[in-house]
């Protein structure tokens, strides 16, 4: 027996060293091209439910959000703004960081003229078409007046090519850019406001904005430009997915350093104060192993690790430090503490802890949220790593160490347990339970649930202010809401979009919607084109006003003839025209089920209003990703809770083996009660229940089972066990609780729930023990 132990004690550390080396090699290989860390919180969101078309449309609409950066360079002097924009634009274009950098309207006017002339019937706005059909006299009179109007907008088509003004009206409709106008001299895109001229630059980054290095490079370029503009007496505003990603990345990194650093430092102090031996700091090793193993597992499974996982994962430090505490804390009980024998006596409890923790975490892996799946994978791998390290390697390194833990701590714990013992005699427990349940019920009654995507993002306030300002200046406010229109063929598609467009026009008129882009603005449905042509054919009866100006009838006749005979380009031809650039991304093409296109919207609009606009229109679907995600958050809360209950059942079954059914139930019920109390506290504190606080509470049940097991196993006596539990709880709190400091609401909410839960877990843990305080081990 003794030789067997000795053999094992020699072999285990070696075996683990080999594993550890393999793990480090794997990690080194994974990090060969820089850190495989993704910064996008959005990447952790579940992809929308729905068919391939919907996913295609969502991806298409996501692309500009992720890749486009909009920059406004302002200066009180117009020409300085133009010059600044040109210098930044050229610089960025030369940098190679961007696929496209645009700040000038450098269109070939002749080509634009040609396209406008060829497709003016197609592009005539619906309201103008209606005027021509219903009131041809008014239409002609407006045109006659327009020929003399001094400030009519600059017309691409000269009057003799556009006697009826169809081209001028179509051109007006193209001017959807809101307040952004080209500077006639330089072509620079400008927005004017009193005392300030802003030049607008559109940047499109290469590839995905959420690849790790690009956002930082882009953010640096923008910051450099900001300093340069401020030095020149100007200002710079910028917005775009890449900038948010860069800010998120920086924040995640600094928070991880802060929280991870504080947690490590705290744990270190805890160990030193508790055990008074520097060598005991070796027991921090499982933390490092846990982080490396968690990272490696995530990269292995998901290809990369998200910054959010890393931040939450850093909190794993506390749990990982628990394992060595299991046997280190036994030094209070034994006169002479030996690492291997202490491990042997606590190994069953340690293994049970690992099993229950794994069950708790893995339950989360089955929620439809990639975020939770990733965190679960990270944690599970990390815990296994920490367990193996604590069991295989650490005892060898701690071998021969004489532990002289602080005796005063044990005295405090002994006194606490004797109070508890007195409380448990008689009916104290039942009174307490009744009081406790009343507290919980009242608290939970005040709880409100909140699920909003905005909690995830924890928007950088400076960036958000700039985005708001840009919306105000440019009038462009892209939203995540859009319509997906499907049809059997192009003709039907345009017809359906036309029907939707009529309703949207009404919303624009009542200012419920800022504007929208739809393919039927580019190509008129065939039936409407037919109606337009027949109205045109009747025009000679109404064009006296133009004849009065001295325009020869032959000239009008010739243009009319041309308009009537001119074939209008079909949708795909129209999309190829240089005028069609803003619409091009809307067309989703043809597949086996027909054709589809997106109708994109500008301005925040109430989802129910938009739902109303789509109502009753066949093939039209409102896609509201934000709303959908918020609903999904709520649904996930429920499914996560269900999964948790299932995992609790599994834990009960597992614990039945050592403790029997009664003991197992007791051990599982205590953390559940603690979670309930934490939930009630959230209610009392007026804090919302979010997916994240729920996730925290689920975690609490896993960790709490740990403490209950420690107390139940009762190795070294109840006071020693209580002390071990206290050390564990403090080290857990040091890592999880510190998440309270995070600026991301989701993470801070998580930290709060965990902190509360840990406190109750510790307070309730003495009840896990059996009534007779017999000393084992």
């Amino acid at each position, binding site marked *: 027996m003794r030789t067997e132990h000795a053999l094992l004690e020699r072999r285990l550390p070696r075996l683990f060293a080999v594993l550890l080396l393999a793990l480090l090699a794997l990690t080194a290989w994974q990090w060969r091209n820089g850190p495989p860390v993704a910064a996008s919180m959005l990447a952790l969101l579940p992809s929308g439910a729905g068919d391939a078309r919907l996913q295609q449309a969502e991806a298409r609409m996501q692309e500009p959000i992720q890749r486009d950066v909009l920059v406004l360079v302002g200066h009180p002097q117009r020409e300085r703004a133009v010059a600044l924009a040109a210098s930044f634009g050229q610089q960025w274009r030369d940098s190679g960081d961007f696929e496209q950098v645009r700040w000038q309207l450098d269109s070939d006017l002749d080509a634009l003229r040609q396209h406008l002339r060829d497709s003016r019937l197609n592009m005539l706005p619906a309201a103008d078409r209606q005027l021509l059909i219903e009131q041809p006299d008014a239409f002609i009179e407006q045109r006659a007046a327009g020929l003399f109007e001094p400030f*009519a907008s*600059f017309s691409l088509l000269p009057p003799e090519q556009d006697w009826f003004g169809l081209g001028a009206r179509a051109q007006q409709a193209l001017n959807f850019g809101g307040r952004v*106008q080209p500077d006639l*001299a*330089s072509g620079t895109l400008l927005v004017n406001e009193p005392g300030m001229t802003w030049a607008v630059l559109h940047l499109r980054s290469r590839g995905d904005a959420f690849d790790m290095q690009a956002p930082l490079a882009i953010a640096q370029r923008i910051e450099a430009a900001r300093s340069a503009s401020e030095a020149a007496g100007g200002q710079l505003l910028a917005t775009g997915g890449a900038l948010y990603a860069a800010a998120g990345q920086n924040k995640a990194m600094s928070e991880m350093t802060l929280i991870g650093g504080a947690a490590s430092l705290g744990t270190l102090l805890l160990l030193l104060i508790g055990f008074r031996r520097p060598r005991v700091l070796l027991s921090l090793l499982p933390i490092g192993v846990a982080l490396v193993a968690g990272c490696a597992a995530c990269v292995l499974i998901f290809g990369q690790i998200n910054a959010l996982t890393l931040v939450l994962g850093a909190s794993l430090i506390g749990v990982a430090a628990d394992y060595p505490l299991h046997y280190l804390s036994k030094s209070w009980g034994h006169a002479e503490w030996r690492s291997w024998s202490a491990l042997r006596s606590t190994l069953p409890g340690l293994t049970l802890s690992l099993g229950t923790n794994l069950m708790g975490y893995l339950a989360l892996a089955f929620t439809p949220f990639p975020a939770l799946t990733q965190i679960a994978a990270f944690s599970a791998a990390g815990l296994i790593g920490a367990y193996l390290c604590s069991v295989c390697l650490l005892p060898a390194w701690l071998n021969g160490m004489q532990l002289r833990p602080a005796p005063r701590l044990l005295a405090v714990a002994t006194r606490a347990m004797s109070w508890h013992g007195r409380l448990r005699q008689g009916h104290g427990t039942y009174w307490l339970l009744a009081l406790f349940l009343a507290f919980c019920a009242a608290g939970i009654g005040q709880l409100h649930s909140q699920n909003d995507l905005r909690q995830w993002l924890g928007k950088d306030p400076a960036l958000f202010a700039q985005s708001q300002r840009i919306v105000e200046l440019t009038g462009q406010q892209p939203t995540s809401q859009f319509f997906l229109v499907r049809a059997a063929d192009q003709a039907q598609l345009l017809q359906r979009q036309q029907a939707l467009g009529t309703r949207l026009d009404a919303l624009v008129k009542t200012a419920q919607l800022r504007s929208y882009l739809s393919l039927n603005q580019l190509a008129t449905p065939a039936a409407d084109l037919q109606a337009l042509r027949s109205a045109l054919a009747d025009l000679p009866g109404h064009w006296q006003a133009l004849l009065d100006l001295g325009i020869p009838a032959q000239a009008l006749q010739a243009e009319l003839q041309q308009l009537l005979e001119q074939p209008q380009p079909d949708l795909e031809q129209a999309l190829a025209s240089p005028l069609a650039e803003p619409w091009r991304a809307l067309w989703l093409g043809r597949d086996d089920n027909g054709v589809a296109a997106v109708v994109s919207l500008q301005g925040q609009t109430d989802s129910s209003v938009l739902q109303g606009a789509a109502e009753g229109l066949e093939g039209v679907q409102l896609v509201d990703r934000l709303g959908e995600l918020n609903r999904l958050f709520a649904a996930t809360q429920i499914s996560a809770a269900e999964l948790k209950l299932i995992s609790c059942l599994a834990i009960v079954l597992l614990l039945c083996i050592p403790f029997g059914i009664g003991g197992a139930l007791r051990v599982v019920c205590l953390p559940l009660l603690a979670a309930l109390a934490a939930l009630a506290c959230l209610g009392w504190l007026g804090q919302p229940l979010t997916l994240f606080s729920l996730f925290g509470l689920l975690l609490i049940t896993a960790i709490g089972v740990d403490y209950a097991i420690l107390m139940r196993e009762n190795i070294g006596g109840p006071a020693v066990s209580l002390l071990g539990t206290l050390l564990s709880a403090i080290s857990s709190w040091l890592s999880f609780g510190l998440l309270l400091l995070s600026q991301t609401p989701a993470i801070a909410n998580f930290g709060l729930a965990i902190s509360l839960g840990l406190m109750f877990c510790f307070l309730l843990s003495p009840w896990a023990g059996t009534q007779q305080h017999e000393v084992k081990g």
Partner: protein
Amino acid sequence: MNALARFTLLIGLLLTALSSQAEPLSLDQLSQQLSQHPVVRGPFIQEKHLRALPKPLASSGTFVLAADAGLLWKLEKPLKQDYRIDANGIAKRTAAGWQMQPGRDVAAQQSKLFLDVLKGNHSGLARDFELQLSGDAKAWTLALTPTSLLLKQVFSRIEISGGELVERIELHETQGDRTLLRMPASRAGDALSDEERSDFAH
């Protein structure tokens, strides 16, 4: 683009050009000569010579240019319509009073620019035209040839001529049409009439 918008633009360009340092002496003199009057009034005749028409499209009316307020443009034939440009943008007179036109047009940009120039807020457009001044103070001609890519696609050449005041502006469009704006009987004044003042005020 319409003639008046061009006219205002050109006056602006002219003043910018004149006050620039390119040809100091003569341009400076002309600038001073044109900008010394607080108010200029007179009739205008605009002829649009379109290639497709045997006769030009003619219109006429009167204008009031006030250095510190803006421009009133009163079209009388073939239809009556008053326009106004000032620092706020472009307005059209309707039965309900002045109605601001949407400020997003390129023409609005030009007219704003023009007013900026009047206030001495030069916008440096001179660098987008090549300027050639000939003649003397009694009879001068200033030829502008656009150098900016965008303007080149709109105008091929612009000629402004006059004596004491601007009398004639001719715009040659790249596409072959030509607009002639004549102000044959402009008179300089010292102040706006009450009616004009109220037109600018409301």
